[in-house]
């Protein structure tokens, strides 16, 4: 089962706060940069670099509620797999302290490393059946660029966030964040490595706030 099941599990997990706590909800649409590519049927993203900017393709954004929130008592574990010589997903937002596993689903070696200031690591080269699955804990907020030492074209992004409230928009830019705490915050939309938009929001319990990022 693997990936699909995991993703499904993740989605259920993300929706839990809405039903349980019924906090504030923000929904809206992020105006995404125009894609030059035909829409990808499978929900797979790649990181492309154009003009020194790393961005997911087809374009999606990560919308998150910025602020200082308590770390979860038990660190979550997420996965970025390597499949068909790409990272899957290619863009992964995580809360600080999250452990990310890098399962190798290809038939070849991979050697994932990052020289990004937010996280420098090098898991070394490993085979598909390597156990335990190589993993790293990301405890500094920032953008981490993943590279493979063997396949120089491979790029993956991990957006390490302070907040547990974040969501990846749909390809048309729509998002919905629910179960949010009340108060004044900055709602941010990360669009690519150079662009993060910001909107101040005032959240109230059981209200749905509509915020668009033009």
């Amino acid at each position, binding site marked *: 089962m693997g990936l699909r099941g995991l993703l499904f599990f993740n989605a259920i997990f993300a929706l839990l706060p809405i039903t349980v706590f019924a906090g504030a909800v923000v929904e809206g649409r992020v105006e995404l940069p125009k894609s030059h590519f035909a829409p990808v049927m499978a929900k797979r993203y790649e990181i492309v*670099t154009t*003009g*020194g*900017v*790393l961005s997911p393709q087809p374009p999606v954004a990560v919308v998150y509620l910025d602020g200082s929130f308590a770390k979860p008592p038990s660190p979550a574990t997420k996965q970025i797999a390597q499949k068909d010589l790409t990272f899957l997903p290619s863009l992964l937002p995580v809360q600080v302290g999250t452990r990310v596993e890098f399962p190798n689903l290809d038939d070849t070696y991979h050697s994932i*490393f*990052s*020289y*990004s*200031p937010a996280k*420098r690591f090098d898991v070394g080269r490993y085979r598909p059946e390597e156990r335990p699955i190589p993993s790293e804990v990301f405890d500094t907020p920032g953008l981490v*660029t993943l*590279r*493979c*030492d063997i396949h*120089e074209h491979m790029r993956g992004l991990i957006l390490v966030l302070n907040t547990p409230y974040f969501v990846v928009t749909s390809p048309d830019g729509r998002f919905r964040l629910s179960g949010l705490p009340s108060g004044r915050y900055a709602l941010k939309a990360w669009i690519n490595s150079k662009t993060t938009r910001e909107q101040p929001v005032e959240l109230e319990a059981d209200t749905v706030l509509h915020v668009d990022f033009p």
Partner: protein
Amino acid sequence: MNSPAEANKRGVVRFRTKLVGAMMLVVLALTALGLYFTQRKVAATAERDLQENFQAKLVSLHKIQELRHTALTERCGELVSKPRIHAALEDNALDLLYPSAKDELRDLMEEPEPSQAEAADSLHARFYRFLDATGAILSPPNPQDVGELGAEVKAQLALKKLPETQQIGYVSETSDASDEAVDEVMVVPIFSTETGEVISALVVGFKPFEVISKSAGPGLKSGIWMNGRLHLPSVPKSAQSAIGDQIANAVSKSDSVQNNINVTINGAPQLLFYKLLNPESLFPPAYEICLYPLTESVAQQRRLRWQIGGAGALLLLGGFVVSHLVAARLSVPVEKLALDSEKDRLQRRRAEAALASTSEELERSARYSADASHQLKSPVSVLRAGLDSLLGREDFKPEVYHELSALLHQTYRLTGVIDDLLLLSRVDAGHLQIEAEPVNLGELIEEWLDDLSALPDSPEMKIEKELPAEIYVAGEKRYTSLIVQNLLENARKYNRPGGCIRVAARRDIAEVVLTVGNTGRPIAQTAQQHIFERFHRGAPVSDISGHGLGLNLARELARLHGGDLRLLRSDNDWTEFEVRFRVARPSLRRAAEVA
């Protein structure tokens, strides 16, 4: 007689000398020409061989160099595409740049440093550095890991801007003059995977390629000339600066990136080849210098020149000997010719004198014979006239008349002899000219036969004729008639009573053959060969008149007419003569007919 012979001898000697001289000149010219062309050809061949040899060595050298360069380029290109190096540069992790590169360049840097002789084949790097976006050197955290550099080299390495393409440069360290080092530097631009711009450059320094001459023997040496300085370790320091100046001179004069010049190192001539190593480089131009010693080739050429000279001298000597021999050989016939011509001249002179005297004698004899016949004829005429007048008298006894008549007959005979002698003397003197005209032979014969039959003492005899209707011969009628008369008279004279005469004429190609046969006692076998001699008579028959000149005269005349007279047969009561005349030419005959 003596002086012309000596003159001849002198002439022969002169001729021989001239011949030898001329031949020597030719030999000399040919030898000189041959030597000149041989020398030129040899020199050209030597030059071409040298160039080919040099080029071959150079080509093989360049091939190795090229291979090494290609390997280095490939290696450096590989290095600059390494994800870790890109990650360090692009992900703002410059502190990880050198550590990452250390891993990637480990094979280049940590290879044991090769010996000087192996440096050419090795890809061992002496140092490496990265340049930042402005072209300045990014300082390594631990210089000993990446190869330490002096300040001077660092200054040479820094570029004003980052290159877009790979650059080759040469840097030298002159701080320690005793151990001057040149490094070949390869600068490879690093393009950002994110922006596509040049964000850095990898600089790798290698030992430059140099062919080390084995055991200081003759061979190719290579070095580098840059910034006005020559770096050629195998050449003594003192010579380096001198050659450096010559190269600077040659480079400044010509725009070509490569050329040959001749230089002299410690008195030994060398062929020097220079070639720009880094055209269009951001680094100052550096020239590859190759030295090829010419000592051997010069020595070889000198040896060849001596050999050619020796061969030429031998050739000249051989030519001299041969021309001498040939001249001697050639002058032998000339000498002989000269002697012979001298002899010939003498003989000719003698022959001429003899001829003159003979001619004189002949003239004299002809005149004598003419005078003689004249002197003879006059008394005979007087004698005959006297006898005639005596016969006219009537007071003699009848026996006296008989005697007188016999005497008169003898005077006629004498006249005939004299006439014949006169004619013969003219024939002998060659004074008798034949004026050929067509003569009707048949008519002539008929006339004479008529005359014969009319003679008073003619015996009874049968005459057979076999004559064509018209038969013309070429000749003078007078003499032709004389021949015919002689033959017919003989046939009558020597015939027997009741015998026969047979006359026949026929054409035989260009001749007319006339045969006259008669019955009668044949001519004795022994006498047959003498019958054409003068004063010879076929038979000692006293009753037959004749003086022994007729046949001789007839034959001489026949021969004068281009024909001949001979005895066909004389046996069994039959004697037959044959005379041949030339047939008259038709034109002549026609002319005669018209006349």
